[in-house]
């Protein structure tokens, strides 16, 4: 009897510790996103001054990891999150991450934004061709239209240099699946005023 009770108690303690650790990680992510949102709003308030000071400078050179760089809105799936700089596990725990070195959303080039399939991009699979995505940076607001959607192997070379303005959203696939992620969902969007780029995809 005592052995069974001790075994049960051990299981309860280990389970509570495990669930508590995972829950705490979710909590830290939620707090990080809340902090990033407040920081982003403050950043926008001073956007004009910042643009004047950094005129002509590279927009991606001074981004620190974890710093808010953009706001991502997808009305169809009720997504409204602040995009953070970096794609490390710690950054992605707090929100969608902007791949360092890629263009900022709205700038010339390929802007790559990634997020976890169990949190911020848990409904990304519902997006279809033609759906609208909106990004907001210090430089301004850009509306995008999804022109490409594909599922690829996780090792497939899908990050490409682009000459025009392109937004690439990535997450793990399949969504709603526990365990490893053998594939990736890749969504590609172009600005609404640049539909001609879509023909090349």
């Amino acid at each position: 009897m005592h052995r069974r009770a001790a075994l049960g108690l051990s299981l309860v303690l280990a389970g509570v510790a495990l669930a508590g650790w995972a829950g705490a990680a979710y909590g830290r992510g939620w707090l990080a996103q809340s902090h990033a949102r407040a920081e982003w709003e403050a950043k926008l308030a001073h956007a004009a001054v910042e643009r004047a000071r950094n005129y002509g400078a590279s927009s991606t050179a001074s981004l620190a990891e974890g710093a808010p760089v953009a706001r991502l809105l997808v009305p169809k799936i009720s997504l409204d999150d602040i995009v953070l700089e970096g794609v490390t596990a710690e950054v992605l725990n707090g929100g969608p991450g902007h791949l360092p070195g890629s263009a900022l959303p709205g700038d010339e080039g390929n802007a790559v934004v990634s997020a976890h399939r169990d949190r911020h991009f848990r409904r990304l699979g519902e997006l279809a061709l033609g759906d609208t995505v909106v990004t907001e940076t210090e430089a301004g607001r850009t509306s995008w239209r999804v022109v490409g959607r594909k599922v690829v192997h996780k090792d497939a070379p899908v990050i490409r240099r682009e000459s025009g303005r392109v937004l690439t959203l990535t997450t793990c696939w399949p969504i709603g699946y526990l365990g490893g992620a053998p594939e990736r969902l890749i969504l590609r969007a172009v600005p609404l005023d640049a539909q001609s780029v879509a023909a090349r995809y």
Partner: protein
Amino acid sequence: MNRRLLIALSALSIFAAASPAAAQFTTVVAPQKKPVDQAAVLEQRRVAQARADTSHRATMQEMSAWVDSVAGAPKPGTVVADSATGDVATDSATVTATTKQTATTRFQDGARAPNTASALPILLITGIGMTLFGLGVIFTSRRAVPAPARRRRAP
């Protein structure tokens, strides 16, 4: 006369046996020192000097690498970011090895998508499952305990 002779022999035997008995109890007999081989000593000193020189050279090489790293000089095959364009110029062999072994953390043409898999959901579900299972084990173990026998009252 015989008694005196016996006493004398006893005293003589005691004195004669005293030195061997003491030798048994002292036990430690210092060995005689070997003659010092001057050639071996010189050889040991030469080896020690050579080792010291080798470690000194190794230290200086590390210092050189450290100075290079401080000066910003990259090692061969190191990934170097171009701050002006935001691109990454790399050796092709390094790119292949990096792409195969590590996750994508910076934009590269032809890189794979960043790793967005998270172990948190499965950890959370496993933890909740273990907790519930443990509670079930505790509950069933309590139900399996027989009721304590009632005391009989004395007549």
